[in-house]
C-alpha cells in the first residue's frame, strides 16, 4: 500500500515562493494498491485538481473519494476534479453525515450559484453518496475504517489496513481539547483509528507558541501531534495540514521541534510535502 500526497496545506491554498518545497495545495491524498486500477482518494482540497489530471492520463474511471469533513479546504478542489466532467467516470463519495442535512445536499451547495456557475445537474459523471462512519469499507486487499474525531462539525478520521500494514489519516484533529492521556486510550479521540499504525498523518498546524490563541479551532500543535502519536504507539508521525502563514523554513523548524520531542528509538517525525510517497509493506 502506498500513499501519495497531492496536498497537505491547511485552511487555504498558499501558492508562492515561500511554499514551493512543501506545497501550497490543500488536503488530498491518493491511496495506491498494487494491481487495482480503482482510485482511492482521501479529501478533495485543491491538491485533487492535479490528481484528477493524472487519473485522466491513466484512464482511471472508477474513483472512490473519502472526505474527512466538508470544510472548504477539504472540498474546494472537487469542482475542478477533471474526472467528474467525464460521463464515463463513476465516483463514489463517502463523507460524514450531519444531524440535519444529507451529505449530498451539503456538497451540492458548493455546486450552485453564486458559489459556482454550474449546477450539480450539469456534472456528467455518475456520482453516488454514502454516509460515514459506518461499517468498514472493504476493497481489493485493503480496508478503510472511519470514526468521528474531535474537530468542529461532523468530522471523521480514517485508518487504512492492508495485510499487517496500517496508516491513519487525521488531517484535522484537536485531541488535546479532551485530553491526550495514554493511560485512558478508550477516551482518546481517534485512539482506536491510530493505534500502532505504521504511519499517522496528523494535524500539526501550530507551533506551541501559536496554539494557546487557537484553542478550540480544531487543530493541533506540533507538540500535541507528537504526544498523540506517542499515546497510540504509532511507528512514525507525518506532520500534516500546514498552517498557511508558515513558510518552508518555518515548517522545517517545526519538524525539528517535533524531532526534539520524540524520544530515542522512535522514527523521527516527517513533514508532509506534495509529491511525497509513503509506502508500507
Amino acid at each position, binding site marked *: 500500500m502506498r500513499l501519495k500526497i497531492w496536498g497537505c496545506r491547511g485552511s487555504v491554498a498558499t501558492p508562492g515562493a515561500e511554499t514551493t518545497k512543501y506545497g501550497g495545495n490543500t488536503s488530498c491524498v491518493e491511496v495506491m494498491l498494487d494491481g487495482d486500477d480503482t482510485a482511492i482518494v482521501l479529501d478533495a482540497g485543491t491538491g485533487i485538481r492535479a490528481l484528477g489530471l493524472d487519473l485522466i492520463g491513466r484512464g482511471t474511471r472508477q474513483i472512490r473519494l473519502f472526505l474527512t469533513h466538508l470544510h472548504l479546504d477539504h472540498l474546494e478542489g472537487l469542482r475542478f476534479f477533471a474526472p467528474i466532467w467525464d460521463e464515463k467516470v463513476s465516483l463514489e463519495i463517502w463523507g460524514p453525515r450531519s444531524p440535519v442535512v444529507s451529505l449530498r445536499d451539503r456538497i451540492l451547495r458548493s455546486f450552485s450559484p453564486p458559489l459556482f456557475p454550474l449546477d450539480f445537474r450539469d456534472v456528467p459523471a455518475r456520482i453516488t453518496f454514502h454516509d460515514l462512519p459506518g461499517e468498514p469499507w472493504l476493497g481489493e486487499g485493503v480496508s478503510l*475504517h472511519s470514526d468521528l474525531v474531535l474537530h468542529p462539525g461532523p468530522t471523521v478520521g480514517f485508518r487504512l489496513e492492508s495485510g499487517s500494514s496500517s496508516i491513519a489519516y487525521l488531517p484535522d484533529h484537536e485531541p488535546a*481539547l479532551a485530553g491526550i492521556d495514554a493511560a485512558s486510550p478508550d477516551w482518546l479521540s481517534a485512539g482506536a483509528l491510530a493505534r500502532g499504525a505504521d504511519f499517522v498523518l496528523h494535524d500539526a498546524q501550530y507551533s506551541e507558541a501559536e496554539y494557546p490563541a487557537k484553542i478550540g479551532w480544531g487543530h493541533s500543535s506540533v507538540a500535541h501531534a507528537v504526544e498523540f502519536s506517542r499515546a497510540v504507539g504509532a511507528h512514525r508521525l507525518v506532520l500534516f495540514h500546514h498552517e498557511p502563514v508558515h513558510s518552508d523554513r518555518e515548517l522545517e523548524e517545526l519538524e525539528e521541534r517535533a524531532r526534539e520531542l520524540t524520544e530515542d528509538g522512535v522514527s523521527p517525525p516527517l513533514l508532509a510535502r506534495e509529491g511525497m510517497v509513503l509506502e508500507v509493506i
Partner: protein
Amino acid sequence: METQQQKQLVLILARAFASSLSTPTLLADARGYLVFYNEAAEAVVGRRFAETGEMPLDDWVAAFEPRTTDSVEIPPERRPARIAFDERRPSHADYVVTSTDGMSRAIEVSAFPLFAHTDEFVGIIVIFWRA
C-alpha cells in the same frame, strides 16, 4: 482493525465538559454503564471515580439508597437517570441519598439523554446539586 473499546465522540466531549464543571456531573453510556463522574461529584458521593470504575448505573445509584424526603424508597424506574435512559427524555427530581460517609444529603437531579444523531443514542448525562 483490532477490537478495542473506543468511547463515542459525544461521550469524550461530554467528559471533557464535565471535567471542567464545578457542578457534580456523571455520564453513562448506551449500555447503561456509569463511565465517568467528575471531581465535584466525587465530593458529594464520597468516593473517587478511579476507585469505583465502570459499573451498571442502576447498581451504583442503588448503593446511595435514593428516597424521597419522606424516606420512601424511589424505585429505579422513577429515578431521573433511568427515565432519561429508558424513555430517552429529560427528567428531574428531588431526593435524599446516603453518601459513602454515611451522611444523608438532599439533592436535586437532572438527567438528559445524549444523541449523536436523532437515531443514535449514546448515553446520558446526569447533573445534581445539593438541595
